[in-house]
């Protein structure tokens, strides 16, 4: 079976700390770190074009070049261009979801927001891995 991918636009240290945790949830999932918003769009477009969309996309608000919101909006635009189903998006960000963010989530559809607490990287990674486990169950209809 082909390995499935989760694109993660987060700090490299969080991605590396979350990798073994996610492998324990599902050994067939690859966490693909994308350094900034533009790289996220490159990776996403390649996967969509190959007919192998990622299971999830995790975004930070403060990604370089294209921020989290811009990335999410671009992802939806690219999905429509390829007539692909919308991929689940998780915003993992420092700020809590305000009314503007809630409006964005409603516009995007299949998108959730999780506040990243000011805690050590391994704790942030654990929180992310738990959220991914919950979302993967929903995505796979379990």
């Amino acid at each position, binding site marked *: 079976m082909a390995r499935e991918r989760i694109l993660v636009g987060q700090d490299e240290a969080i991605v590396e700390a979350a990798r073994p945790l996610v492998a324990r949830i599902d050994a067939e999932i690859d966490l693909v770190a994308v350094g900034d918003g533009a790289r996220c769009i490159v990776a996403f477009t390649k996967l969509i*074009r190959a007919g192998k969309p990622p299971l999830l996309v995790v975004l930070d608000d403060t990604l370089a070049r294209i921020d989290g919101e811009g990335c999410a909006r671009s992802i939806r635009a690219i999905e429509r261009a390829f007539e692909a189903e919308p991929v689940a998006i998780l915003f993992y960000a420092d700020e809590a979801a305000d009314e503007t963010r809630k409006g964005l989530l409603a516009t995007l559809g299949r998108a959730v927001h999780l506040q990243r607490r000011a805690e050590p990287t391994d704790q942030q990674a654990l929180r992310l891995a738990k959220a991914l486990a919950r979302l993967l169950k929903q995505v796979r209809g379990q």
Partner: protein
Amino acid sequence: MDTKYCPSCGQEVPLERTLQGNYLMIACRNCGLGLGVKLASADELRKLSTPEQPSLARVEVVKRQRTISAAVEKPAPPDPRSAAPREAPPPPAPAPAPADIEAMKRATEGGPVRQMGQVMLAEDSQFLRQITRDLLLSQQLAREVVDCEDGVAFVEAYTRALAAGDRPDLVVLDVRMPGLDGQQAAFAMRAVETAMGQKRTPILFFSAVLCDEKFKGILQELGNARYIRKSEDGDAQQLGNRIVSVLGRLVGAR
């Protein structure tokens, strides 16, 4: 003169509208936006501005076998409380006639600009989309113009075009757009090109926002990108002149 939101800078400012021959001239005192819209005839405008329609005159703009409708509000009556005489604004220059356009093309560096096939345009102001489209077609700079109302619609249209093997010759992006601004849309566009192994389409940023050092760095990073500030041009002829000049450099850079 009446006070309206300028379609270029978005500020509530006095918009001066004057009729010069067959051209309706619109100018913004804040950013200097100057546009000339060719009318079917001056008489037609007067006929349309009847007492039965005191607030709105509908002007039919006819160019190159196409009809564009532009809603133009009539100027507000002068305020009787303002006793001080106002300085009359300098009359804007008329829009270029076809003969002027040829001279303009010859005068710009790089010689005549070849006509492009398709130009993709992202501009959230419907008015400016229409004017820019009209300019590109009337000056025979493009054979086809694809309109997008914001950055998200542009990324979708551009991706669709690349997937269909129908890459535009030029992309014109407004910098300030809701949802996905011009800068982010441009980075998304470059990302899609990279993912699909395509060449970089020239980008022309067309905005009222100043091109500061940070933005110059962004242009350099994007590659094959130029910038035109709408507000530098006081009238349609100057703006058209600069667009032709910049397009010549952009298209030649490919």
